């Protein structure tokens, strides 16, 4: 599977690359000068796959029925500066990316609190049944990474990222189950389908750690894989509707065009 993705990405770049190199002829000189000083400009595209998930999975979640990673793309422009002999360097830049997924899970006594839309009423209860969650968040992300060049072909990087939420969607539904008023001893009501939307409660800021590796397949083309591990949750820690923090943890597979 991985090979297929790499092959697809490589063929896309192969189609685009000649057009680009022709256009930037007049800037080649500047790029070469920059390269000589240890600077490199990079443009990457990738596919984010992962989950916005609690860690560890709480015991209220009894099973995951389905998982759909969705189509989450990342486009990134970075600048890399290598120091000394060129083994070590720093890479930073800006990335536009989406992180999302859809899951269906079975829950048991899942504590929930929810305000109705005009704030005139709150429901607190324990839900046993199925929960479908759909997340689709678009972030602008600033990664800052240390880079170590193992050899001509391979480099690894690690560092941190900070993300700002441009557009967020967190929706779901609870279905085929029952809710008990307040807690597991409360009055029971069967639920056929109840939808929720916590999009407005999403935190704007997200940060975490990022690490990955890159393989330079051609002079101007590298393929990479990295992992972004969020440190803060997507909701405030006192948010009552989701009682455990949800961390976006996503892997990225993609390619980089090296100028």
């Amino acid at each position, binding site marked *: *599977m991985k090979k297929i993705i790499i092959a697809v990405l490589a063929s896309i770049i192969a189609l685009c690359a000649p057009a680009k190199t022709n256009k930037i002829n007049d800037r080649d000189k500047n790029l070469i000068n920059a390269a000589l000083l240890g600077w490199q400009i990079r443009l990457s595209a990738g596919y984010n796959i992962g989950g916005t998930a609690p860690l560890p999975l709480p*015991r209220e979640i009894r*099973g995951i029925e389905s998982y759909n990673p969705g189509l989450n793309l990342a486009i990134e422009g970075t600048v890399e500066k290598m120091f000394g002999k060129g083994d070590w360097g720093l890479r930073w830049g800006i990335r536009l990316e989406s992180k999302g997924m859809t899951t269906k899970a079975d829950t048991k006594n899942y504590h929930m609190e929810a305000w109705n839309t005009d704030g005139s009423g*709150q429901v607190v209860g324990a839900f046993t049944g199925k929960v479908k969650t759909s997340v689709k968040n678009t972030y602008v992300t600033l990664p800052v990474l240390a880079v170590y060049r193992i050899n001509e072909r391979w480099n690894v990087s690690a560092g941190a990222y900070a993300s700002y939420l441009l557009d967020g969607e967190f929706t779901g539904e609870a279905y085929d189950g029952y809710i008990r008023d307040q807690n597991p*001893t409360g009055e029971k*009501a069967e639920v056929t389908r109840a939808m929720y939307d916590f999009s407005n409660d999403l935190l704007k800021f997200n940060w975490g750690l990022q690490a990955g590796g890159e393989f330079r397949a051609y002079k101007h083309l590298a393929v990479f894989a990295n992992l972004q591990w969020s440190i803060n949750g997507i909701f405030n820690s006192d948010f009552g509707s989701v009682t455990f923090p949800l961390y976006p943890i996503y892997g990225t597979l993609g390619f980089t065009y090296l100028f």
Partner: protein
Amino acid sequence: MLLTILSVLTSCIREEAPNAECDIIAVKATWLESNKEILSGSPIISNNDVMFYVKEETSIETLKQLDPEFELTYGALIVKENRIEENGTRGIYLYYRTTSEDGAWSKTYRVSFTKQTVIDVNAVFGFENFELNQPAPKGKYNVWHEVDANGTRLNWWASGNAGFNFTGKGKTPADFPTSSDSAGFKGCCIKLTTRDTGSFGKMAGMPIAAGNIFLGEFISANAMKEPLAATRFGLAIAPSKPLTLTGHYRYTPGETFTDKAKEEVAGRRDTCAIYSVLYEIDPGNIVTLDGSNVLSSDRIVLVAELKNPGEPDEWTSFEIPYVPANGKVFDWQKLEKGEYAITVVASSSKGGAFFEGAVGSTLYVDELKINWDNK
């Protein structure tokens, strides 16, 4: 790759936590079987109550010896509390405490044994006996009961308040569709108000909740899933043949009539409903009428319905006759054999069961009385 991720996620699923629920699910069939000489009908189990009806000849002393066996949520424990209360001269209350498997949750069940009682022929339903559904601070809404001449408490009245509770909008008992009001025709009365259920109600396809009060049972577990089936109208408590239903009411409809989708229906005005139905049952297997058929079932024998209630803003009395339905004739032998159930229903919106009505419609009802044939 997707499969890999899914299997990683699945492998993160931790060992199931012990159960947190501690319900009485059923009465053990073996216990029911060995006590069938005493029992009448099937026990009714709700979240904090188990109600048994017992045969007339059973002595209170016999009832006090009973110790029913229950089926509980898996892993839950049950302990009989050391207290017995008498319910007037016709019943007793026992108390059991259940604790969940995880030990974190427990609740007390009131287990009642009551001799099957029919409505006293002179009874006037004045709605003076009400309390919170549970002791404060847990209790949110009012529930009503009757007390007969022997001081026995009879939980005959039901309302949809337990369903409205899931909208989160009921902060005080007066916020609920069915509440008590001190400005009754005589003492307290029932105040029924059609309420907006907010976004949770709308989400469940139930944008309004009409206030209702009826002789029967409200199954709150069905309230969201199958609301028409939640209102089980009728109890086998008719002492005789009903002739007329009398009482007092006043009614103000709400401004804007809306349909099931909460869309305004221009030109339509809300109206209230007050009616009573006597219908046939199989005493061995009681299937009550519910919201879907309470006025249309072919089991209906007699029906009394307030026609054209209007909008009186002062207390207005009514007397409505029971008229035969479905070509049926009241049969005294059937009454003798317990083959009739009777209900009395009042609602602030006639179309409330189908979520049609006007938010704010208010019906006050007091001093209901069924006048019986004293043959």
